[in-house]
């Protein structure tokens, strides 16, 4: 169980994304808005010739959406053949935890519970492992399924 995790900050919390799912980390500036779409979709962004759907991870976990001004860092993931750029507040580090993912015993808020895969422990700190696919699908879709 020595998978790598990317530590990022979403809605003020440090969380871990399974590094295997992450294609790259990019800085994005201009996001083309998409009208009438679910709130966790911030818009579209061109990564070279690919069109990425930009995901507001804060909105996806039920927090206040990003303040979209200036540059932001985004994690590029691929789900079901579609490219997504997940906006995050901060990208910290890639780490390899000593132990594997364990189920969290804390009672999470619904927004977090939806995206959490469990927790890992790094330097004595427990971090939520977040499922990028759940971030991308957003709350509405899960409710509908």
């Amino acid at each position, binding site marked *: 169980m020595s998978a790598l995790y990317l530590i990022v900050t979403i809605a003020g919390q440090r969380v871990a994304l399974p590094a295997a799912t992450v294609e790259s980390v990019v800085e994005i500036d*201009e996001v*083309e*808005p*998409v*009208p*009438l*779409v*679910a709130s*966790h*979709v911030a818009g*579209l*962004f*061109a990564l*070279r*010739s*690919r*069109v990425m*759907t930009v995901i507001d991870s804060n909105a996806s976990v039920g927090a206040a959406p990003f303040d979209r001004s200036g540059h932001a860092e985004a994690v590029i993931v691929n789900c*079901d053949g*579609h490219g*997504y750029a997940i906006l995050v507040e901060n990208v910290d580090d890639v780490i390899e935890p000593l132990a594997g993912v364990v189920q969290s015993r804390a009672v999470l808020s619904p927004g977090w519970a939806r995206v959490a895969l469990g927790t890992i422990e790094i330097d004595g700190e427990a971090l939520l492992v977040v499922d990028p696919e759940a971030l*991308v*699908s*957003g709350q*509405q*879709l899960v409710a509908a399924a």
Partner: protein
Amino acid sequence: MDDLLVDFITETRETLETLSSEIVAWESSPSDRTRLDSIFRFVHTVKGSCGFLNLPRLEKLSHAAEDVLADCRAERRKPDAALVTAVLLVIDRISEVTNALESGESVPDHDDAVLIAALAPGGGVEVVAVEEEVAPSAVVANTAQKGMSRSIRLPVDLLDRMMAGVSDMVLARNDLSRRLRDSGGEPIIDAAFERLSVCIAEMRDSITRTRMARIENLFSALPRMVRDLTAELGKQVTLEIDGGDVELDREMIEMIRDPLTHIVRNAIDHGIEMPDERLKAGKSPTGRLRVSARQAGNQIVIEAIDDGRGINADKLVEKAIANGMLTEEKAATMSLQNKLHLIFAAGLSTAKAVTSVSGRGVGMDVVRANVERIGGLVDIDSKLGQGLRLSLKVPLTLTIIPALTVSAGGTHFAIPRSAIEELVRVSSGSAHLGELGGAKMVNIRGRRLPVVMLANFLKLNSTCADSELTMVVLKPAGGDHYALAVDAVHDHEELVVKPAAPALMATGIYAGTTLPDNSHPMLLLDPAGIAQSAHIIGEAGNIEDIEPETAIAVDECAPTLLFRDLDGAERAIRLDLVERIEEIPASAVSHIAGRMRVSYDERIIPLMSCGVPSQQDRYRILRMTDGLHSIVYAISEVIDIVAMDFTCERALAPGLIAGVALIDGRPVELIDTFWLFSEAAREAVGPAHPPLCLLTDADDPWSRQVLLPLLRTAGYRVTFSGAEDADDADVAIAIGDGLADLNSESAAVRTIRLSTDPEQQGGDTIYRYDRDALLDALNASAKHKRRAA
């Protein structure tokens, strides 16, 4: 057939690869329903394929496993360890036999029966002994020993990367082009740049094509399958296939293969009745199954229509209630369409008996799962006792579609060109925007259309005044006209459209995303989706009121393509006649059989032009059709698309040019499309009833080999004396001295005698190689007969 077998082997092996982990997982928790379902589907598919590939051994194995698994699904049996092991052994054997099929080796089959027997309840004891030699992990090992493959299979991912690379290249090219323009052109650099552009365009084209394939590939397997199935079931079915030349992404074709197979199999097994049953129902004993593909907007629609018994929706509901999938209260409120959709629920089938072909209630759920996975839709329409129509609508990924870019509230959008009927500026005076009970309506030359204000609809802030708006009149496929009010219209562009993320598609108003040359992503609007979500009401109710006006409006003003012809003149042609504007390689054009022709899509189409295309590598052509015949017209370049009023100064004599009209103050010649088509059709059309020419001497080799071809080319039908239609002949030709028996044949017909001696001419006798005299005489005689009649 060989291809089908190879397909089967590859497919089975691929499924086995993905299934191997499922199998192991199922072993550890035999009650896991989803694992059970996927293993069941696998053996079901194998069984089905073996059925029509005639692989009895595999069929027997898979059928046995399927029976047991079906029992587990129906909870008639509990999957215990012995059963799981037995099923795994059978799957292992399937994998061994499949590998052996490919390498041509044989696998001893003496213990097949043992494997099958082990599946029976209580048959586990024997299995334990066998288990020692073939552990479940052997599945993985076996699949690793692959034999030789005769084709290269490329991961689609790699093609995607190539495509992305080319798209990047196009963007870089565009950027460079802008910079070159800004810095002022230097001819040498421009020429080099031009060459680069051509190379990039060609490469982009060919890479796009690597992903595209004709749907024929999919359809070609159907006739054989239908034949085998009908033979097995004792039914009679004629299969009609249409639209094989529709091109589709290769990956899509693979994804539709299974669903289509299931659908066709179901149609024949359950849909179409036995011949005597059909007769009783007053239908022809031979059932009809029609499989067709066509492109509709940004979708490919594949339909399978049969004239069988259809689906009994009430039976379906009964069954669903019995299965506990549905409550009676809920059933009572369901529409017919919803009831029919129950067929897609797992584990439901209306077939009374389980046959070896289908009827276990799998298939339709698999069909839907597969089609939905690629962003498609399955639709069903059934008339009890009359037939069933199943349509698969799948998106065209990675297609280049012509689109119009517009903007509203500062955001750019693309609209598929195919849905646009015309553009009208409010400021031009021909469109009047008004309100009707709070809803916007626009009156365009007397035709009232509902309006969707794009900016308001999308909740964008637009500062554009009503008088500045442009109305895009849309006619979505399968919908009704409406006008979309946009702030500005920008450009016609060819865009590479990719499917948008599910969250975007969920809005129902977008058809995909695209990246235009300026590298700002843009959304492609779905005109039908917008109409639906803006609640545009169909015009069916008031169609009579507006139809005549519309007709006039169309007549007066129609979208017109302005282009530069080969001789440099600016000409115009009605856009609705033009099917495509495209470039063809010069090698496709040749001067054969008296005129310029293009070989195109494996057909030969007449090429019309006002001159010889200049010596270039590629010709730009307009492809037009009158519904029956296609022609292409070579042009130099496209200038613009305008709405044009077709009143013009007539040309003096009929010809290529119908007349001349003023467009923006310039005189522009209008192409006479009637003349164009009639000119192209001239050779194809003979007299309505070609005269029948009787040859009196059927045995004469000269008549058959030399004369007959000449007559046929000259437009005559030919018959021989003694044939059934000999009495209807319009004119007869006798060779040499065959006079005596001629008179008895038919006196009303004039007879031309052909002589081998040039000296013997005169009267009705003509030297046989005097072509002109012979044709004249034939013509005269045929006319004479017609007058007499």
